[in-house]
């Protein structure tokens, strides 16, 4: 698969490389599931990861993840070689729902390091302190002038998705912000 994102590790000036790194990664298999709660439970059973009940939270298991992004909307993420879609379609065929393959929609960045939240906050207005945005918090939000999906996967690591045509813009905004990153 051809990745839309520069997948080399981005070098930051001013010895800031230790503080944060920006890496383009493979999006993996991604599906939007939309449907009523009962069907979401069926979907979770078939997917092997419960679809979270709490808004803006992610559940993870064995390389698969389910992110609740709206009242009736979840994003399912699996590894690139995971052929789960067919079995999901089969398990859900009797239920009213939407299951749409969006594996190619987004570019994905992994941003890692002790100053990750500080860097993201150059362009994302949300409070990203661990208290209000803990590990496995996820949300759609804006980064500078584009909509993104943000998911905190570790204390010091975020996964950032953006529609692929915006990938270069997001990369360049983060690079510029990293250059001017304030002291931690």
């Amino acid at each position, binding site marked *: 698969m051809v990745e839309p994102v520069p997948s080399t590790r981005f070098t930051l000036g001013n010895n800031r490389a230790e503080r944060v790194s920006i890496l383009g990664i493979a999006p993996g298999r991604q599906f939007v599931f939309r449907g009523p709660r009962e069907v979401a439970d069926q979907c979770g059973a078939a997917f092997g990861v419960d679809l979270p009940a709490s808004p803006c939270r992610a559940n993870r298991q064995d390389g698969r993840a389910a992110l609740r992004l709206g009242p009736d909307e979840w994003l399912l993420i699996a590894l690139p070689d995971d052929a789960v879609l067919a079995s999901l379609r089969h398990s859900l065929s009797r239920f009213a729902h939407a299951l749409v393959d969006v594996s190619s929609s987004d570019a994905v960045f992994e941003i890692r390091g002790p100053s990750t939240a500080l860097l993201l906050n150059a362009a994302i207005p949300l409070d990203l302190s661990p208290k209000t945005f803990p590990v496995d918090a996820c949300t759609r939000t804006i980064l*500078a002038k584009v909509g993104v999906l943000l998911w905190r996967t570790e204390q010091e690591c975020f996964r950032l998705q953006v529609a692929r045509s915006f990938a270069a813009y997001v990369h360049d905004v983060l690079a510029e912000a990293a250059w001017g990153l304030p002291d931690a």
Partner: protein
Amino acid sequence: MTQPYRLPTGGRIARSRPLRFTFDGRSYEGYAGDTLASALLANGVHLVGRSFKYHRPRGILSAGSEEPNALMTIDRGAGRVTPNLRATQIELYDGLCAISQNRWPSLDFDLGAASQFVSRLLPAGFYYKTFMWPRAAWRRVYEPLIRRAAGLGKAPRAPDPDRYTNQFAHCDVLVIGAGPAGLEAALRAGRAGSSVILCDEQQELGGSLLNNSQAAERLLQYTNELRALPNVRLLRRTTAFGVFAQNFVALAERINDHLPASNKDMPRESLWQVRAERTVIATGAIERPLVFPGNDRPGVMLAHAGLAYVNRYGVLPGKQVVIATTNDDGYAVADALKAAGAEIATIVDLRRDETIAATHGGKRISSVDIRLPDNSLRRIACDLLLMSGGWTPSVHLFSQARGKLRFDVPLQCFVPDGTLDAIECVGGCAGAGLQPSPATQIVADGKSFVDFQNDVTSADIELAVREGFRSVEHIKRYTTSGMATDQGKTSNMNALAIAAATIDAPVGSVGTTTFRQPFTPVTFGTLAGLSRGALFEPVRTLPSHDWALAHGAVFEDTGQWKRASYFSLKGEGMRDAVMRECRTVRAAAGIFDASSLGKIEISGPDALTFLNRIYINDFSRLDIGRCRYALMLNEAGLAMDDGIVGRLAETRFHVTTTSGGIGHVLHHMEDFLQTEFTSLQVWLTDVTEQWSTFAVQGPRARDIVGELTTTIDLSPGSMSHMSLREGSVCDADARLMRVSFTGECGYEINVPSSEGARVWAALYESASRHDASAYGLEALNVLRAEKGYIIVGQETDGSTTPDDLGFGKMIGARKDDFVGKRSLSLAHLASSGRKQLVGLKPLDPQKMLEEGAQITLQSGAPTGSHAVGHVTTACWSAVLDRSIALALVENGRALIGSTLHVPMPNGDIPVEVTSPVFVDPAGARLHG
């Protein structure tokens, strides 16, 4: 000797680090820790600028951000020339280059100063009175003249080479101001474990403690403890310049302007956008000047500025000092200056019925006339006059946050009236610890300045009241008092007091003017932040972008997308390239990257019902594997967007929108689902960027696509016009639609975007083998116009119905309802005389029409004649080799065959009204 006014000891400057700087080309020396103002004073320089209106010589009034006089242009190289900076805030660095402003030819000899001798011709509001006639002269003569004569520094001309950044931040407590009150508030919150941001506009934390040589140890303890707290962020050189709704505070951090200009490996400034649970405003208070004749002469200074120069900067601003005060603070300042070696000539205590009647001296004060209680005058020689008219709390931010103020009689100023929900004022800005001060004695004869920066005198304010102005807001606007870049920090209270005294009303009832952001000026760069240059607007590129770059594409912007306008081969011009592309499509085939088309996957048991309600079409008989051109109306019955609806399965549809339409179409659909059609089980997913879409159009399209797929039967019997298949193209999962926007047999290949670039390259190879080529938007526009296919937004303008476009028969007549249906029966949409889509052929086939041109029934119609229509698309048809156009014309379909006129500046262009379909009206090519 350098720095003749530098004290041998004391101050917070680093005497081990001398720095050179220039002022108006002359070289001086100062120390690290100096401001430009303190360094100039150390060198005995008091004359630092000319005033705005009268070009009067001006000195340094203050030692802080309230400075109205000492405005400088700082030159840091090309594009880094900043005017109107306050010398009292400019930190000295080695090589600093400062230039005075508003003087010609030089600061010492200024021709504009003659204006003060005609000042009786320039009273308050003079520009409303004097330059009224002749009317036309205002813009061309008077205003340019006034602008040249009055004014401050010049805006830089070169582009700003600096970079700026932005930081959003959240905290429990934001403390604004690091004086004693702010430091204590930050420490309390920090010790309690709250996340704290403490910002201060100065280079050092401490506020008034910096001016107190006894407080150095206490200050060090404070700052050491704060630095050790990991939950406290200290932002020096950071001005809180605006408070907005919900405790949102904007801070401007100056990052590198205090460093030598060569240091560019960091942003110049950063905008901090802080959302705090609680904000503590500890911005202190500003000393009030006294209003007396000649109070603007260089060498007249605020008393506590004098204290700051002595204690903080180790500079003696004068050796023979007169102090004029309304409060006890003046005496403390006298003690400090005396201790530093100055001679205190006298203290004029206005509470004893003494006052200053005049000042003397050319470019620096040399003596003052004191009016004694028995009304006699006494002249005293001096080189420094320090004045204290009491204190004005800095309530700017509290007031911006909608905090109420009340007038405090003992302090003679406005103070916060209570607290706001999450915002409190502490210390001087709350009025705490300030010396009471009686009402300032006002001496009006002579030039007694109130607003130094805008050159407003007490007489101007009295005049405004005499001319009938009563509201302080009107007086402010008429006199321009408080409207300069310092926003009247030193002048507002005095102006209010004079206005109140003239009206003969208490100051509290006269009220105060509003406080506006920014507290001090903020650069545009800071406000723009990261959004400059290439990052000003996102640039979206198509999967074929790199290929297109390498194949001569000339791009055009459609929204944020870069799309190929045409492909220039061997240096072709636009017209040649477009015509070649058009001919190639009709003769062989062309490929076109249409990936920016909006795409929505619509799923759910009620998807069909939903589509029937959203579009005018009836999809009830749309079989799986078929697609249909569809038109969407808004509730007013007017065309909103169009696209293709394809049925993937019983309950799944692939729907396209226009490139720019995806956002509002998706919103429109979701809005109806969530508010009107709540019982429908339907879900929408935006798949715009999931699929790359490539159009293949032309008689050989089938051969080209056929080389790329083995899983889909393309034969006309199997896959006729308007059908849809899922399969694989170039081994990628594909949705293949047989659709056409050119009138030729055509396909749109949808493949996952991750495969887009690869499939495009394969498609181009295959196309090349069939004499086909890529085409751009310009050719597409010609090809679709030749077929009379509309573009929403071009043939529609927000007032166009389906019938206007000739789509009356597309409306599902058997449908109970759809969005816009009821509106279509309203008289103004259903009556005759509406503009209808037609084609136009200029009688002279060489004559090009202009898009947007009006159309009249008669030739030579005079200006103001009724226009029966307008040209929506005009182009040169390659295949017809003539000029054609589409137009909306009243009753146009009934006029087909007749001649209308397109009036242009060079005369009418007569045109024949035709069917909008110029090429292959029977559709033989389309279905071939």
